[in-house]
């Protein structure tokens, strides 16, 4: 028996959810960024699965773009992390709360 589209979608949903959860349960900026990467990857899986079900190349091409975006985001995100770390020697997001209320 071959896995159906739905199987892939459910798998990607699980991965996506793990990614979102990661944003909350970890207090490390790097891990949070990684969680977002997990989310994007989950979406990629969805795209590819859908593309496969439509029988076109669109899904795969979109994944290509998403990867680019992920790379760009990662670059900027890591640059911000570096800049942050310079100021406060910490990667805990909760230590950056000078802006509030």
């Amino acid at each position, binding site marked *: 028996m071959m896995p159906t589209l739905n199987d892939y979608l459910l798998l990607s949903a699980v991965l996506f959810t793990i990614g979102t959860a990661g944003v909350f349960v970890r207090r490390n900026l790097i891990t949070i960024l990684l969680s977002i990467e997990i989310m994007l990857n989950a*979406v990629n899986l969805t795209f590819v699965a859908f593309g496969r079900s*439509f029988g076109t190349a669109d*899904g795969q091409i*979109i994944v290509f773009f998403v990867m680019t*975006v992920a790379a760009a985001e990662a670059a900027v995100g890591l640059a*911000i*992390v570096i800049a942050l770390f310079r100021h406060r020697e910490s990667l805990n997001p909760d230590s950056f709360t000078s*802006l509030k209320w």
Partner: protein
Amino acid sequence: MNLAPFIAIVPMCCVAATAIAAMIAESFREPGERMPIGPLGVIGLVGAGVASIALWNGHATSFGVVAADNFGLFVTWILIVVGLLSLAFSAPGVEREQLPQGEYYALMLFAIAGMMLMATATDLLVIFLALEVLSLAVYVLTGIRRDSPTAIEAAFKYFLLGAFSSAFFLYGIAFTYGVTGSTHLDRIGRVLAAQGGTPPPMQLLAAGLLLVGFAFKVSAVPFHMWTPDAYEGAPPAVTGFMSTGVKAAAFAAFVRVFLAAFEPLRADWSVVLWVLAVATMIVGTVVGLAQSNVKRMLAYSSIAHGGYLLVALVSANDIGKGAVLFYLLAYAVTNLGAFGVIAMLDTGNRPNDQVRDYAGLWNEQPALAALMTIFLLSLGGFPPMAGFIAKWYVFSAAIKAGYYWLAIVGVLTSVISVFFYLRLVVMMYMTAADTPARFPAVPRIAGAALVASAVIVFYLGVLPTRVLDWAAASISTIF
């Protein structure tokens, strides 16, 4: 060579080209040399403006994913105005803080190009890419004062939440693709319209997730939390830029996606938007009351204004669509003007962005105080200023659609918002300064830009007919 397929992207190409030119210029700049990089951007923006005037009523499309229809062009104009004013207000700050000029302007211009693309794109994928272009540029601009911990913190918060929400947005695109087999808005619209009865859950998932993405960008409650922090941390000129440009682009895409492609599902999303609009208006105004930082206060104000725009969007009739455009323009000019004044008062070592700092401004800088008052009153929706016509337009839309409660919440929250705008007026005019003059002189160009904003604010408030007609003509082409 036939250039016809490319004409729709000419405006954003102009802007992007000047952005690249700015980078190149920067690389040739000797350290310490003053180089007019800002004016370079002006050339690009003016070029974009000319191009979009030429494109008016042309219904040009490029690559099947960019449509220079009147709607997109109207937003493009708004963005050009935003860009010009932002450039003018940025100059003093960039000089004073010795920010990397080339990068600053390049990023700003890239962001504008991204915004233009977002406003004219007719494909979800392109919208997503444009969103990322402008977001990344704005994240960086937010944190461009690297030596300021708050700026970096603001950039970080904005970035993190932005990335988080764009993941949802992307997931929404994925489901849309899965449901319709395409990311193209026309196609999506056709597919959705073709099916009757209750929409399958995946469609609702798609709509909901896309909604989240847009709601984040327009900082609707409860997706607004980043706004005050990012606005407070960013340099004032950037804050002005992102509070207007990003919102304009995001709303343009929002309107395009939801009022065109997802129109068949309106019964489902309008309820959600209704709630979002009410929550946004209330939270924006009520929390704005308690703020002591002017930028933060205006951040909440811009959240609230997002709420009014959502009202127009919920109403979803012809008036509402026109109202979105007019409101965006009025809001953009007014809000940028207000942030321009804040930028003018920034002295580098002292940001002067606390409400308290405005005490006695009238005595020190009467013209700035008067301009600020004009902008604040316009934000508060007083006639004869742009904000009034804009609000009136929005509430007409709500009344026409029968959303009385939305309109009532809208007018009452705008009364509350007047209170915090007035706090600043009270400070400027009716409170004596603790310490004597400490405001820098206003550079000529920035001053001229402020005056120009004020003139536009009055023009839109007193003689809005032409612009209203344009707005009406804009929406007639796509819906």
